[in-house]
Each structure stands twice: as C-alpha cells, then as structure tokens.
C-alpha cells in the first residue's frame, strides 16, 4: 500500500479526510476489541489520527499505512489501559455504547466479550488483529512488536480460549 503524498505537518485537510475514510474502520475495530471500551477506542482512534498527522513525514514510501496506524493506536491503548482512573470514567459510556438488545446472539456476544476481556493484553490484541480483523500474522507481529512465532502462539491460544468460552467444539483438523 502506498501512502499518500504529505507535506510534513502541513497536511491538507482533504488528505487527512481520505486517510480517515480509508483506515478508520480497521483501526477502530482493532481498538474496540483490544481495549473492550468503545468510547475509549474511538477517542484513541482520534488521537491516533492526530499523531499520524504530526508524524506522517516519518512514513517511508513503501510503508503499510494501516499497520502503522494500528501500531500507534496499540501503543496508545496500552498507555490508556494502564490508567485505571480513565478506564473507570469511561465505563458508563461503554455500557451505553455496547450493543446487546437486537444483536443476533446477545448471550454469545457477551460471553465472547468476557472471554476477550480475560485474555492477556498481547494475546487479546493478536486475536483482535488476526481473528477478528483481516491482518496477517506478519502484520500483527509488526504492530505488536512481537516475534512472528509469539503472535501465532497468541492467536492459537486465544482462539482456543474463546471457543471454549463459547462452548464451541474446535475443528478436528
């Protein structure tokens, strides 16, 4: 993926708008699943785009923009998750934002959310990228700054724990 032409900190508004339009869905979905708090995830996504606007000049010509954005977002989510005070403040918003009524399988979705919340942070992020998102293991390794083997292990273990929580039998393969 080729990044758009930017001029350091003087990025035209239409380029920022295009960047947001192209990548907001993947970034917000990843952050929602990685931190489990929709309102916080959207705040982090907004901060991620702000940081991207400031640092776009550091991006190489062949850089993977989506992975770069997720790296920024992941680092921000780690900082945010360390702040228990902030997490508590957002909890009420999350209760309002999270879907439940009208969802096809509300009980299963809640079980999945609980199981995701119980996963270690890195494992949860790996699952969010590779199982919930369409990121490759290599992209996830780049985003999470982990070895490829560790990412694969996180995904395998996380998947097993999620299926166990859902009471779903795994494929015999």
């Amino acid at each position, binding site marked *: 993926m080729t990044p758009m032409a930017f001029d350091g900190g003087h990025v035209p*508004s239409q380029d920022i708008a295009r960047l947001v339009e192209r990548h*907001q*869905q993947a970034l917000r*979905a990843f952050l929602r*699943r990685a931190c489990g708090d929709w309102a916080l995830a959207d705040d982090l996504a907004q901060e991620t785009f702000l940081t991207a606007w400031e640092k776009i000049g550091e991006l190489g010509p062949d850089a993977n923009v989506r992975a770069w954005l997720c790296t920024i977002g992941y680092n921000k989510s780690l900082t945010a998750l360390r702040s228990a005070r902030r997490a508590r403040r957002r909890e009420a918003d999350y209760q309002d934002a999270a879907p439940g009524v009208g969802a*096809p399988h509300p009980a299963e979705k809640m079980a999945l959310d609980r199981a995701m919340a119980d996963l270690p942070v890195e494992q949860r992020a790996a699952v969010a990228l590779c199982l*919930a998102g369409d990121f490759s293991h290599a992209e996830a390794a780049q985003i999470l700054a982990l070895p490829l083997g560790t990412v694969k292990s996180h995904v395998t273990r996380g*998947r097993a724990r999620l*299926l166990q929580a859902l009471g*779903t039998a795994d494929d015999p393969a």
Partner: protein
Amino acid sequence: MIRPDDHLAALFAQDLPPGRDPVFATSVLEAVARRRFQREMVFITAASFVGAAVLAALWPALQPAVNALAQGLAPAGLAIVAAAIVVILASWRPGADLGLR
C-alpha cells in the same frame, strides 16, 4: 454446520464500525484543526515575545533614530491620514456591503 472460525467472525463482526462514518471523520478533522490552530497561536505568541525582547534590547540605540524619523515624517504622515479619510468617505456607500445596492 457452521465452522468455529466463521462463528467467531460473525460474532466479532458485530463490533465492526461502519465503513463510512462522517461523524467520526468530522471529529478527527475538528481535532486536527484545533491542533493546527494551537500550534499557530504558540508560534505567533513566541514570535511576538521574541520580537518584543529584541526591540526592548535595541531600543536605546534605535530611539534617537526613530525620534528623528518621526519628526521628519510627521507632515507626510498627516497628509497620508487626511488622504485616507477622504478616500474612505468618497467610496463609502451605506448598504453596499449588505448587497442593497
């Protein structure tokens, strides 16, 4: 029978934000505009302070020259101000800016 991975994917899909979200995009653009404005204000404020400090430091040396220049240009300055007033009054048309004429 649905595969476990498809089952997981279907459940995860419920978290997926919309592909186009004008509200979110607008909030990002607003935040960028705010950050840009803050940076410009910081730059202008810093430049003003630096300019004021430089002027204060150089003022003892500049003051005699400025005084001499001001005395020399006083008649010309008055003439320019008077001419500007005449031009403004001559071109002033009440209501023109409101599109009434």
